[in-house]
């Protein structure tokens, strides 16, 4: 063989695109697939969710059965008064649940399928839902809520000053009369 042929042969051997690290990639994929299967077996989400719920329901039934009465009138009053706080809590809970779901799906390393589609669909629905809710709230409460624009405070102060001036004028006029 010519010396040039050896050189060419060596160069070809070094080419990473001709000789990819197939073994490494296959090993990694196999590990991922194995861990995927193991995790689904080890961590059944359905039981984690259903066990506390069933426990809570059983506890409730036992308490009712034991004859303890629940006086919920005051509590209801409180919840009506604190409806806003409650909605805020629901919003934060939904936000956390959705972001945890997204993190969970991608942590599991899914690239396609129902769950990945669901993450996109749910986040889009959450966006639409928030927009609709904000719109509806604005219709329900036509009073201007403090928006986060800086101009609001300045305007409000200005209006307060005008009102105070008017009041002073009236009282002075009243005094003169």
């Amino acid at each position, binding site marked *: 063989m010519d010396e040039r042929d050896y050189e060419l042969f060596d160069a070809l051997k070094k*080419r990473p695109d001709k000789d*990819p*690290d197939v073994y490494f*990639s296959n090993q990694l994929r196999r590990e991922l697939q194995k861990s995927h299967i193991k995790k689904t077996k080890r961590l059944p989400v359905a039981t984690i969710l259903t066990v506390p719920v069933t426990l809570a329901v059983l506890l409730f039934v036992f308490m009712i059965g034991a004859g303890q009465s629940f006086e919920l009138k005051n509590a209801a009053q409180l919840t009506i008064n604190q409806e806003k706080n409650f909605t805020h809590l629901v919003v934060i809970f939904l*936000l956390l649940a959705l972001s945890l779901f*997204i993190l969970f799906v991608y942590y599991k390393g899914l690239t396609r399928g129902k769950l990945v589609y669901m993450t996109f669909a749910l986040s889009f629905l959450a966006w639409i839902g*928030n927009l609709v809710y*904000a719109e509806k709230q604005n219709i329900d409460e036509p009073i201007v809520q403090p928006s986060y624009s800086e101009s609001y405070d300045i305007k409000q102060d200005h209006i307060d000053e005008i009102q105070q001036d008017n009041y002073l004028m009236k009282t002075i006029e009243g005094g003169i009369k």
Partner: protein
Amino acid sequence: MKNPYDYLFNGVCFVFIDLRFLGIADTDILPDFIGYLFFAFGIHMLPSFHNIKRWSKNFAIILAVLSFFVELDQWLGYKMLGEIGVQFIQFLFIVFMYVVFQLLLHIHKNKPLEAKTFKTYQKFIAFMLCGFVIQSFSINIDASMRENVHFIGSVLQLLAYFYFLFYFQACYKYYKEINENKVHSLK
């Protein structure tokens, strides 16, 4: 031959870097639609004949047109859509990046960068989607908390951007090495 990852990186930079965040200017100085055009060209140069390549290229062009109108709306000061248009484009961008990552995963299958592509995909899409969800919920959160919540969403998206930056560096080196080796072998 130019590096397709260069174009993809330019695209991400143009879409992400937004001087309104920093409060320097009222309008976006690096317009997003140029970023999407960079994306389209970069995808065009990627070495693949898969159908995803065609779809993602068309998707990039559609996004370029859409974001051009949204930017025009802001530049002219009509603000017909307000933030809604921007957020919608942001959501479409996340879907688009998902498609781009599918293409990259396909290209890097059985190659040294497969693991890195996969990990970047996991973190990038998860952080971007979480950031989007947090920002969309921030409208209905108490006014005192609103700005902070919005900021958390932005920070998550910035993290995703940095992950893409590191991935881009690895891709860039890999592509450069391949090209150098090709040149050597041809000599």
